[in-house]
């Protein structure tokens, strides 16, 4: 199923593996060698969202998807593919 990040959020937020998906996407952002593509302000926002447990919210999830897609498009798609999802 192909969708944009908001559509993706709506599709996955009720799934039992939603938490794992967020963790996997967070680790993409935390381990990418392309971290120069994330400016420090965006990094701070990501850390804020993580600290507040807000990566599971619509805005937080969308932002996380944006960063993962920007820095590691292939890994991002692979994380989704493993769950039968596409963007």
């Amino acid at each position, binding site marked *: 199923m192909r969708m944009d990040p908001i559509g993706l959020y709506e599709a996955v937020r009720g799934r039992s593996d939603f938490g794992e998906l967020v*963790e996997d996407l967070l*680790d993409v952002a*935390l381990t990418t060698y392309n*971290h120069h593509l994330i400016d*420090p302000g965006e*990094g701070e926002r*990501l850390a804020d969202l*993580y600290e507040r447990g807000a990566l599971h919210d619509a805005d937080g999830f969308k932002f996380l998807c944006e960063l993962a897609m920007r820095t590691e498009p292939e890994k991002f798609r692979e994380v989704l593919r493993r769950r039968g999802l596409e963007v």
Partner: protein
Amino acid sequence: MRLSIELVPKDPFWRMRVYAVTAERLGYDAVWLSEHHFNRSSVVAATYLALRTRVLRIGMGVLNPYAFSPALMAQFAASLTELAPGRVALSIGAGDPVSLKAMGLGWVDPLRRVEEAVVTVRTLLTGSRTEGHLRLDFRPRGTVPIYLAAQGKRMLELAGKVGDGVLINSANLPFLEESARRARDAATSAGREGFAVEAEVLTSLHEERAKAVKTVKPYVAVVLLGMPQTWRERLGVEEGLLTRLSDAVSKGDWLRIHEVLPDDLALALSVSGNAADVRRSLSELPVRFLDGIVFGGPLGPYPRRAINELWRVSSELFDRGPRGSPAQ
């Protein structure tokens, strides 16, 4: 048993924040920020994390007296206590001759320089003046324990003589036990009560053992090159291997390190593997000689997951409850 992590400021600050916050929530005691001139400043990283955490102890260093004067070390530590009262620690060591040379700095008489640094920093942090009229015009908030980073026999003895604690950078069991005994004996002889012996162990945890070992190898290579010659001889490390590793490290050729460094040597000098492997390695540490373990190095290919998993394994093994519980 204190459980801590070391973060290497090769990562952007926001990443270190995620790791430190994760560690703080789990119940770890401290985060140490390692210092390498080619990475982000450990002092700036410590400042940043002091503002982003609430109870985690912030360990600065290892700082060496060639790149940082003792007056600056005391100034850094005392300033940091205003942001994190009572939760700042400092580690002082001799530094790495190769890195110092690259910075245009000599490496002369390390034992004397480290001892002088410890004495000077302590003098300044306790509000006194040195004979050379150094002083701080403000007082630190809380005491700042001064650790020595030590591997060689004489540095371990110096740690026991003048330090509040020692960080022993080794995961190798015989070396670690010998080193811990030596530092502890020296502290007892010097009457230093409360002296803390902590093992700083290169760690890499991942469910796939091969990935964990691969991730730790560059860190092992650096430690191996800075290790006392007697230790390398006991490990049977050949000069040819050292030459190849030295060349690869100086060029930052990490792929070459993966090829050159044997897996068994990486495993002998680190706590690496899956959760069961790590649990087994930790259970073999000479815990009766240790007050703490600092999980250092890469932690794993996925550091945040490794921080979580290391806590699960080690808190259970060492009977550590959540922060503030009696088991702590």
